[in-house]
């Protein structure tokens, strides 16, 4: 009896992520969903710039590496050229909510029929722990060494809340991967975001509250607790928009 195996949609390349980082979990969830929906052969994934820049090595589907923040624009091009294929982007908070905010909002406004997996860990990981657009007020990072001062550098951006006001967006949900229950919910959301695309429903984004123990300066276990204590109170989990479900009511 097979108790545990690697999803087919993941390659054999060892992940480069730090110990305790939750990128690995989310990669696995995306790959499981591809397997379960039987879409690996027609999926084109788009990797961002940031920690998941090398995601193209980890997914077995065709992959494109995009410029920083531009993944939704690249995905738009791919989907318009290949409307029968499945197109997803996998982006971090700096990529999606800072440098790529225009591309994000406009892809949502156009209701591009794509799936976005948005990793929010409130910090720039790849470059070594700088303040992100989603860093919490008071959060200490390399570029906010005295804590994020909202008078000086503004407030965190709540992506799901903001996009829920964009008429074009179909489905927005915020999930977390810091415990088993949350991971299970996260998978359900990711699956729905891909299923929406298969069904032609349009722009579906899942925000995944993730941990960055290395740059948060916490142990992996403490980092998961920090998600419950600090992140989720600021970024409440839940469905922020589900147009089709609402229309069906």
């Amino acid at each position, binding site marked *: 009896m097979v108790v545990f195996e690697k999803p087919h949609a993941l390659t054999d390349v060892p992940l480069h992520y730090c110990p305790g980082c939750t990128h690995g979990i989310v990669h696995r969830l995306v790959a499981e969903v591809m397997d379960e929906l039987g879409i690996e052969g*027609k999926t084109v994934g788009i990797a961002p710039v940031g920690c998941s820049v090398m995601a193209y090595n980890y997914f077995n589907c*065709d*992959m494109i590496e995009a410029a920083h923040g531009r993944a939704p624009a690249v995905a*738009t*091009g791919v989907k318009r*050229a290949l409307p029968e294929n499945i197109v997803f982007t996998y982006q971090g908070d700096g990529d999606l909510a800072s440098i790529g905010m225009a591309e994000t909002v*406009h892809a949502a406004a156009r209701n591009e029929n794509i799936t976005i997996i948005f990793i929010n860990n409130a910090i720039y990981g790849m470059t070594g722990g700088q303040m992100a657009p989603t860093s919490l007020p008071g959060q200490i990072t390399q570029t906010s060494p005295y804590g994020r001062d909202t008078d000086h550098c503004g407030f965190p951006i709540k992506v799901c809340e903001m996009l829920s006001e964009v008429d074009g967006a179909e489905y927005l949900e915020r999930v977390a991967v810091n415990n088993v229950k949350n991971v299970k919910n996260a998978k359900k959301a990711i699956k729905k975001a891909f299923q929406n695309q298969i069904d032609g429903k349009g722009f579906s984004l899942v925000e995944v509250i993730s941990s960055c123990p290395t740059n948060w300066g916490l142990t992996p276990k403490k980092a998961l607790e920090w998600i419950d204590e600090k992140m989720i109170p600021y970024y409440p989990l839940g469905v922020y928009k589900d147009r089709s479900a609402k229309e069906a009511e």
Partner: protein
Amino acid sequence: MADKVLMKGNEAIAEAAIIAGCRHYFGYPITPQTEIAAYMAKRMPKIGGCFLQAESEVAAINMVYGVASTGYRVMTSSSSPGISLKGEGLSYLAGADLPSLVINVQRGGPGLGGIQPSQSDYYQATKAGGHGDFRMLVLAPASVQEMADLTVKGFELADKYRMTSMILADGTMGQMMEPVSLDYEIAKAPEKPWATTGTKMEREHNIVNSLFLQPDELEKSNNERFERYKYIEENEAMYEEYMMDDAEICITAFGIASRVAKNAIVEARKKGIKVGMIRPITLWPFPNKPFEKTIGKIKTYISVELSMGQMIDDVKLATKCSGEYVLCNRVGGMIPSPEEVLAAIEKANGGNK
């Protein structure tokens, strides 16, 4: 002549692109090239193509990157300030070896500059389109017919060499109307086994990528790319020679400047001055060979440009600094008159006689 129609240069580019099989266009409005977007917006939906007005030039070039990854012919167009924004995307397209067509209908700069014609993006197009070591095929039309012809050629070269082709036009070329014939035999585009179209579970996954964290691998990819560039330099240079057989003075000019220069050459020849012109049609690869032939025969080269003197550097290199070099230029949207060029020719010939 019956099959010729009058078209604006911008429209000729758009229609030629469609004839060449381009079904995806992304752009953002900017004068003086907006007719291309307007034309595409009208035509694409009728032929099953995609016109999409992007939220920015940056988004537009990345949409191009997305379509190019799938192997389909794709284009964007803009004017100088917008091309600067596309610089990032141009570098990524080069790093990922993707074919695309980019149109620059130049206007005066720097900064917001003006909206009148200019050729001051020559350096940007031929030497510094973005960060990193890379080249684009740069094609410089001098008539509405060439706007169309070089668009078709640009797609073919882009596919052949997996590069960006840039049409470097200017506001005059984009806005003027001339008779044009759009009768093309379009060759089948080459197979693109590298395209990301889905594995169908039948092959290893394709990856479109410009990231090489290992320096030796990045060096290798650069070296391989430059081998290709070397081949292109030897095989794809295009130019026109005009009255060069007995010329002692050589005008160099491209695009609209070459049109003005032709008028001046005709007048100078009436006065018995032996002057001709080499008009580069490809700005990269720069047509070195016709210039090399002039070494020892030409005493003065007059570069007529709508810039502070950019192509003149390449003329000096191609002729190994063997002559005297004169810049005859106007900038900021001004265009040299034939009389100004004639005066430069007469001065080079030893003053008015």
